[in-house]
């Protein structure tokens, strides 16, 4: 029983990480209807810049805020320079652009920062909270940060005019132009927000998995599984999906298939969701146009 609880809590902690990256995926998907395969590497670059800022003497929170702002700008620029020119091309070419972007970002990070493993600080205390032995402070902190981001996004999409405009662009780009929305700018904004969310995720992941250019490869597969499971257009789905994937992964790893084969859980899940319920648990099925 004790062991099972341990696995569940560890799963929730991992799940929070998948959830935060899945949120970034959902963000871009909702606005552009593209799945951003380069999301993990964007977050990697953000995490490296946070690391560099801290190395250069900035305090943790200054580095955090500056990195999130820089990442936002990086998202806007990438949308403008790389994605927008490619977006008129057939879907398959766009996928190839995303994969190219992923490889390029990864190589740039490796070239600048090297391939050795770096340690990254956590803003949370080293001792587990309240003397419990199920979950560490950092893990609990990551869960809180993820839920906090979900809350902010919910408020943003639901209650602000800008959030409504972003939803409109996702729903019907042509009509958006007819009501005076500058759609391309909104796509840039969506990319900026996704990159900012990814930056927070990267900074939260780095203390757990350590910082090196391959940090994101495994994590992203789980995040894709989480986003698909929850519904690729649903922020709440992303978070619920993240937690489910995290717990499932840990339980399967501990009791069923062993840790070596854990990554296949993500693959199997992706295939099952695509076959059984492509819209995911919380996603909107494609609405029929009258």
């Amino acid at each position, binding site marked *: 029983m004790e062991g099972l609880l341990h696995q569940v809590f560890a799963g929730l902690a991992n799940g929070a990480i998948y959830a935060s990256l899945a949120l970034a995926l959902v963000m871009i998907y909702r606005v552009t209807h593209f799945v951003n395969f380069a999301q993990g590497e964007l977050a990697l670059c953000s995490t490296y810049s946070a690391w560099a800022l801290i190395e250069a003497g900035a305090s943790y929170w200054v580095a955090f805020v500056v990195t999130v702002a820089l990442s936002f700008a990086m998202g806007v620029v990438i949308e403008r320079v790389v994605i927008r020119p490619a977006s008129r091309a057939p879907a398959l070419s766009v996928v190839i652009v995303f994969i190219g972007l992923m490889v390029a970002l990864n190589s740039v990070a490796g070239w600048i920062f090297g391939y050795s493993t770096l340690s990254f600080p956590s803003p949370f205390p080293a001792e587990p909270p309240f003397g419990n032995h199920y979950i560490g402070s950092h893990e609990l902190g990551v869960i809180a940060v993820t839920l906090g981001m979900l809350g902010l996004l919910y408020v943003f999409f639901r209650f602000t005019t800008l959030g*409504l405009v972003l939803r*409109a662009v996702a729903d019907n780009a042509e009509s*958006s*132009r007819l*009501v*005076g929305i500058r759609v391309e700018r909104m796509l840039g904004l969506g990319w900026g927000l996704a990159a900012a969310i990814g930056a927070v995720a990267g900074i939260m992941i780095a203390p757990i998995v350590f910082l090196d250019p391959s940090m994101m490869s495994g994590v992203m597969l789980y995040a894709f599984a989480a986003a698909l499971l929850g519904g690729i257009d649903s922020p709440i789905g992303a978070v619920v999906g993240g937690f489910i994937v995290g717990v499932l992964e840990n339980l399967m790893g501990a009791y069923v298939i062993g840790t070596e084969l854990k990554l296949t859980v993500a693959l199997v899940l992706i295939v099952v969701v695509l076959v059984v319920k492509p819209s995911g648990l919380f996603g909107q099925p494609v*609405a029929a146009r009258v």
Partner: protein
Amino acid sequence: MSLLALAGLSAHYGCGPVLHGISLDVAAAGVSVVLGANGAGKTTLLRAVCGMIAREGTVEFDGARIDRMATPDVARLGIAHVPEGRGTFPNLSTEENLRLGACSRRGPRDRRAIASLFERVYQYFPKLAQRRRQQAGTLSGGEQQMLALGRALMSSPKLMLLDEPSFGLAPLVVEELYRIMRDINADEHVGILLVEQNAAIALDLADQVYLFETGRVVMAGPPKDLRGDEALRRVYLGY
């Protein structure tokens, strides 16, 4: 001076021109109606005015050239296009659809201004008030057309471009819609460029009529000219 003046307007989708040198006017607070069979180029005309497709020639709105402007900028000048197929946001609620109509309107956008716009739209279309929280995609065809008109009104436009508002609707619903459109034209002092296949009902609203055939204007004049010409009447009005 006209509110909208088109001169020598041509447009193409990339495979040869679809409009050939159209000249057409909408008077301030006037109603110009374009009639023509399916495929005559009516929808293309409205799309060309809004910069949704490539075009040549001049488009003048309120005395200024707008033929090089992007679609959102045209909309921000006060041109509300209610497109073919209504163009609602199907996954958003009725209220959100309306709110979007006001999101980049000229003039105040504060809470009170928006609230009074909502009130006016709900006065014209009480049914929309009942459907406030419903997803637009689940509304009936007539309600969707009302929503599209309501969204246009929310921007306090100077000109509305209406693409076959009667399409696919029951005759009673069409009558109701046209009654409201007449009220809007009179009360809000808004010009209308209306495109229809349903000639009989559109003519009642028109003060200027243009007949389109394969992308050309074949006749222009006040409605009585059309009613008075037996050959045209038989083709376009069917009596």
